[in-house]
């Protein structure tokens, strides 16, 4: 189970990191979602892995650490909300700007009506 869980976390993280570094916002959103899945699994494992045990103390028995479960719950809610926000923003930027690239367009770096030749020299 340790191998399964750790490889799942590792693969999700790797895929998420790769997608986050892409230049289209859809891939980036997908990447953040994957990363948050990886994190949720990871948080779950921080209380040590126990199988078939309840997350409450009872006399003498084995129990699962309940705190990571509470943390995961909070993290899931927050990452869910964040994904919704970033989706709306990406959609807004796509509708306003006409493309879904993540980088800033040229207009962010040079003044409007700037002669291209001077820009080439300047750069």
């Amino acid at each position, binding site marked *: 189970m340790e191998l399964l869980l750790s490889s799942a976390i590792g693969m999700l993280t790797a895929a998420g990191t790769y997608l*986050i570094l892409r230049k289209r*916002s859809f891939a*980036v959103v997908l990447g*953040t979602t994957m*990363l*948050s899945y990886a*994190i949720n699994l*990871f*948080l779950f*494992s*921080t*209380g*040590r892995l126990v199988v078939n045990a309840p997350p409450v103390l009872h006399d003498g028995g084995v129990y699962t650490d309940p*705190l*990571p479960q509470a*943390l995961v719950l*909070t*993290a899931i809610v*927050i*990452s869910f*909300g*964040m994904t919704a*926000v*970033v989706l709306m*923003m*990406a959609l*807004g*930027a796509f509708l*306003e*700007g006409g493309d879904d690239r*993540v*980088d*800033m*367009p040229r*207009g*962010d770096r*040079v*003044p*409007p*009506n700037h002669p291209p030749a001077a820009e080439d020299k300047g750069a």
Partner: protein
Amino acid sequence: MSHLIIAPVVLPAVMGALIILWMRQDLLLQRVFSITGTTLLMAVALYLNVLAGSGEVQVYRLGNWAAPFGIVLMLDRLAALMLLLTAVLALAVQLYAVGSGWDGKGRHFHALWQFQLMGVCGAFLTGDAFNLFVFFEILLIASYGLMIHGGGEMRLRAGVQYIAYNLAGSTLFLVALGVLYSVTGTLNMADMAVRVAAMPAQDTALLRVGAVLLMLVFAIKAALVPLHFWLPSTYANAPGPVAALFAIMTKVGVYGIIRFFTLVFPQDTAIESVVADLLLPAALFTLAIGQIGILGTRHLGRLAGFAAIGSIGTLMIAVAQFTPQGTSAAVYYLIHSTLAAGALFLIVDMIGVRRGDLWLRLGGVMPGNGLIAALYFVVAIAVVGMPPFSGFIGKLLVMQATGTAPAMLWIWATILTTSLIAIYAMSRAGTIVFWKSSELGQAGPSGDFRERGDEHTPNLAHAPANWLAVAAVVLLLSGIVALTAFAGPVMRFAEATAAQLHNPDAYVSAVLEGQEGTK
């Protein structure tokens, strides 16, 4: 135990909810309630400063639950000071937003503003690492909304970058917390400090990983090089007052570093030396890149953004010493740089409104050129750290605190050289905007600027009370002047703060001992 300790979190939360529920359509009511709320927050912060001034660490146990399991809010000198700083900056900037009409350019400005304050105040007060994460998310969600206030293509695009970057940061934060929890078995910061101190030195490998990850998270928030890429575009494209409020948000990252690396991972441990070795070069590069960025940019908003990065660099040099003297210098410079960065962003916004755009190129004469030029002059002196303002005293204190450090030569050389670069860069920007443009006069050869000017003509009629906007900037600048005039008392407070931070036993025992009455 004073119940007012939780007021900085509850008050903005209630205000924000009230504004959204009852006065969605009425901007005037929103303004009244929001400004009242922020003023009340300032009063509470003043009271809490008096409370913390006694030197005793105050604990607020939520629901009266016992400490390592229940959530606590902590009030010490640093937290109280940060609260007051937040409230003062927020009030001044809010007055500017109302006076310049920015708050009417989109919906829910005031509600988001209050939620933002709630997140910032909560992050300063909490004594629980996971709650710190939650308050970070609260302030970030509100900041996403504020950042795209008013809309527009550039702003949305910069907003997407800002969110993506911060989502990655939040993910790292959770990883760091997970690692720390798996090693120490607790999330309460004081309890964590006890367990870290009790841990044998050879078992600290995972702990070091957690500590460095945590530092990365705070470094992202504080825009420390090489994690600063989000800042210039974000701040240049955000509405002026929002960028000014964001001056406190970079300080949340600085606060996190100071808090965690004095309390949980204190001096003389392997962890802190690892962090100090990483932090100092990063701080020097931050300072250098920030000040060179001021010189290199051709956009006033970016100029202010790079100035903010530079000030974080200076601040971090002092923090990275991890000595009481370094921390007290950092506290002083932190107050100064927050006020100065806020004022700079507001003045840049005033220039933008009157000039039509923020590019550093020749344009026409602005209405009120002289007044704004004078304000810019004052804030530029403060930002680059020339006498007579507090920037100079702050840099002097930082240099004094690093005088005996092994890397003293590097530190002093970087601070002095970059100050020179910043002086040149700020005066060049001021010359282009105020003097050369006014020399050209109305008949200047800035055809494209003038043609476009029609749609962008500085329409001060949009601003309901322009005097209020100017007064807000003057208020921030007078804060800088007061900081200069009362440098002695402020420095004594900063030294007391540093002494309290570097002696965390009182903090720990305040949380974990004397809990008889709790559940």
